[in-house]
């Protein structure tokens, strides 16, 4: 099936030929798109990859969150989902005494966390018990639409390694659309422009080549 932009209510197929995937709904025998996105068929499932929308947390995702509130035994973290996520003291790499949570993480501070669980009522819990989880103390956070994250990573990480090569910056991409970058100031400026360009042209083809050319030109014009 060719990649096609679809809108809510577009007929995608019948249940006897294909299975109902993400971003779709069923009515009788017909499968329809429920979102504005790109339709594709993968191993029998019809999926719609959204072009816009909020972050929908999935267990195991590495995300970048901002501390909203510190209570006695836990923190509430904004991970750009419709609901705040809870980070319990048992899930951090430090030994935290009761009521001393704000000595470790204060409101407004940025952390890399993993989504630990999401239940039916959409209560989200996150954890810092993984080696890439840490407090963000330097660098810059760039925000993009969560639906554009796969394009910034690219196939098998091709886009992100291209960005690393051309700018020499250190990059961490949160699945929720926050990107943490570290590097020289002028290189970071180029990198932010490149990320914004990917976000804007996320639905086009041949994006990696376009960005490769863009980075080459930018590096040259900055006298490098």
């Amino acid at each position: 099936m060719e990649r096609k932009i679809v809108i809510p209510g577009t007929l995608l197929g019948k249940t006897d030929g294909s299975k109902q995937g993400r971003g779709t709904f069923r009515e009788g025998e017909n499968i329809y798109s429920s979102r504005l996105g790109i339709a594709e068929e993968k191993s029998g499932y019809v999926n719609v990859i959204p072009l816009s929308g909020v972050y929908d947390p999935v267990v195991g995702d590495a995300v970048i969150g901002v501390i909203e509130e510190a209570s006695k035994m836990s923190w509430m973290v904004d991970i750009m989902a419709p609901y705040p996520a809870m980070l319990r003291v048992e899930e951090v790499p430090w030994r935290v005494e009761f009521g001393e949570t704000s000595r470790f993480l204060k409101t407004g501070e940025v952390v890399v966390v993993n989504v630990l669980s999401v239940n039916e009522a959409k209560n989200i819990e996150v954890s810092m018990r993984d080696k890439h989880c840490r407090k963000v103390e330097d660098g810059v956070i760039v925000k993009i639409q969560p639906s554009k994250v796969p394009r910034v990573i690219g196939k098998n990480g091709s886009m992100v390694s291209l960005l690393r090569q051309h700018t020499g910056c250190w990059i961490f991409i949160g699945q929720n659309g926050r990107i943490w970058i570290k590097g020289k100031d002028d290189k970071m400026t180029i990198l932010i422009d490149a990320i914004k360009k990917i976000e804007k042209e996320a639905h086009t083809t041949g994006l990696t080549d376009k960005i490769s050319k863009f980075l080459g030109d930018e590096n040259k014009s900055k006298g490098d």
Partner: protein
Amino acid sequence: MELIKDGKRLDGRAPDELRPIKIEAGPLSRADGSCYLEWGGNKVMAAVYGPKEAVPRHIQDSSKAVINAKYNMAAFSVDDRKRPGPDRRSREISKIASEALENVILTEMFPRAMIDVCIEVLDAEAGTRCAGITAAAVALADAGIPMRDIPVACAAGKVDGVVVLDLVGEEDKKGDADLPVAIAPRNEDILLLQMDGHMTPAEFDEALELALKGCREISELQKEALLKKYKTTEGE
């Protein structure tokens, strides 16, 4: 005053003709989704925020999202300055718009959440509730909200004893009846049906059929507008 002369209306339209409509998806960069719509003399901007956690907490529903549409007319949208702020009319339209949109959005996917829909009427020339719902629907799709369909609204009515489509200001004031209808165009479920004035049952059926015809035409324009947003950047 004659409202219909030689089969033509005040603005020269045939009885079953719509006013010119222009729809643009996503003009606002800070809203999650937005739409600007010009429908004859109506100018409407719709913006969507969310889904986000519902506040105040007591409006939360643990089984589905709450749709919170807010219809507002700008002070400069009518001939005499409109006193700003909510009034009886805007509260009514906010309520009926919320309920019309609620029926197509997959609200059960976002328990405890809220979706804000702001409908701002910048310039009014009758039929703003239909224009508002039509614009809000495009803004919701632009925001990536899961929906069963893109709702669309259009009005029909009776002027000088003739059933007409899409009433303009004078026809609304001096005509006999007004019938705004909102539908989900895929299976033509009715999401909103209001009427003021008088019509015979036969005229009502004729007006409803005419309104549905108008809705189908506008639905195509909505789809075009959404697809166009992503086509334009593709050409670069």
